[in-house]
C-alpha cells in the first residue's frame, strides 16, 4: 500500500477502521504488561520509589517531541507534496502532542519536588519543553482561528516548521547548558546508563505510550476527515438555500 493510495480519505477510513480495534487491544496489553513490570521494578539506590515516575514521565516527553516531529513531516507534506492527508495528520496530532507534553511537565514537576526540592526551575530543558507546550497551544489556536482548512493548514505548517527549531534545543539542552535536569541516560552515544531492571519496564512503557499515541492519532484523523465531510455538507446545504 503506497502513500499515494492512502491519500484517498475513504480508503484511509476503511483501512484504519479495520486496524484500530487491533491497535487498541495491543495498547491495552502493552500497558497491562508495562504496569506489571513497574510493580516489580526495584527502587533506585538514590531516588528510591520516585523513580517510578520516570516510567510515565520519559515516554510522555518522548511522545511530546515525537508528535512535533510528525507534525513537521506532515507540514512538509502540506507545503511541498500537497498530500491530502498531511494537514489532517498534523491537525489531529497537535492536541495529542500537547497532552503528552503537559503530562511530561506535570509528572516532571512532581518528580522534581522531592528530588530537587522545587517543582520548577527555569533551566534550559524545562524551559524548552514549556516552549514546546506553548507552541502546541499556538498551532491549535491557529487552526481554530482560520475557517478555511486549506489556508489554516498552510499557516499552521509554516508555524510548525519554525517551531521545529526547538526540537534539537530540547534534546541537546542538557549538553549545551548547565542544567538541573539530568543529562541523557537512555538515548545516548555509548549506550544507556540505566540498570536493565529499570530500563526494561521503561522500554515496555515507551512502547505502550507509542501504541496509545498511534491509536489516538488515527482515531483523531478519522474524526478530522468526518469533520471536513460535515463542513462540505453544511456548505452544500447553505448553497442550496441561497439558490432560487
Amino acid at each position: 500500500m503506497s502513500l499515494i493510495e492512502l491519500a484517498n480519505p475513504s480508503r484511509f477510513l476503511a483501512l484504519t477502521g479495520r486496524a484500530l480495534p487491533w491497535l487498541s487491544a495491543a495498547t491495552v496489553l502493552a500497558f497491562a504488561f508495562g504496569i506489571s513490570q513497574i510493580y516489580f521494578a526495584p527502587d533506585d539506590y538514590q531516588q528510591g520509589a520516585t523513580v517510578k515516575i520516570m516510567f510515565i514521565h520519559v515516554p510522555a516527553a518522548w511522545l511530546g517531541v515525537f508528535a512535533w516531529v510528525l507534525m513537521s513531516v506532515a507540514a512538509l507534506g502540506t507545503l511541498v507534496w500537497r498530500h491530502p492527508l498531511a494537514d489532517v495528520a498534523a491537525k489531529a496530532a497537535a492536541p495529542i502532542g500537547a497532552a503528552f507534553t503537559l503530562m511530561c511537565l506535570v509528572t516532571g514537576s512532581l518528580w522534581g519536588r522531592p528530588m530537587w526540592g522545587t517543582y520548577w526551575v527555569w533551566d534550559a530543558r524545562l524551559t524548552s519543553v514549556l516552549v514546546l507546550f506553548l507552541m502546541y497551544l499556538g498551532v491549535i489556536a491557529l487552526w481554530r482561528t482560520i475557517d478555511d482548512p486549506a489556508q489554516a493548514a498552510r499557516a499552521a505548517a509554516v508555524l510548525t516548521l519554525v517551531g521545529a527549531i526547538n526540537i534539537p534545543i530540547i534534546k541537546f539542552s542538557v549538553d549545551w547548558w548547565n542544567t538541573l535536569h539530568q543529562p541523557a541516560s537512555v538515548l545516548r552515544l555509548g549506550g544507556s546508563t540505566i540498570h536493565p531492571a529499570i530500563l526494561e519496564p521503561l522500554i515496555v512503557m515507551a512502547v505502550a505510550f507509542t501504541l496509545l499515541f498511534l491509536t489516538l492519532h488515527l482515531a483523531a484523523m478519522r474524526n478530522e476527515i468526518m469533520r471536513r465531510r460535515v463542513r462540505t455538507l453544511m456548505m452544500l446545504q447553505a448553497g442550496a438555500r441561497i439558490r432560487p
Partner: protein
Amino acid sequence: MNLGPHATFIVTAYAAAIAIIAGLVAWIVLDRRHLMRMLDDFERQGMTRRSGRVEGEEVLK
C-alpha cells in the same frame, strides 16, 4: 508495594497521567459521536458527499 516517604508525589503523578489520557480518549470518543450524529442527520435529509453518491444522483435531493 511500599512507595516510601514520597508516595504522595508518585500517586499524584500517576493520577495526573491517567486523567490526561482519560481526557484525550473522552475528547476523541465524544467528538466522533457528535460528528457521526451530524452526518446521520445529513443522510436523513438525503444529502451525501460527491464521493458517497451514486453516479448521476443529485447532491441535494
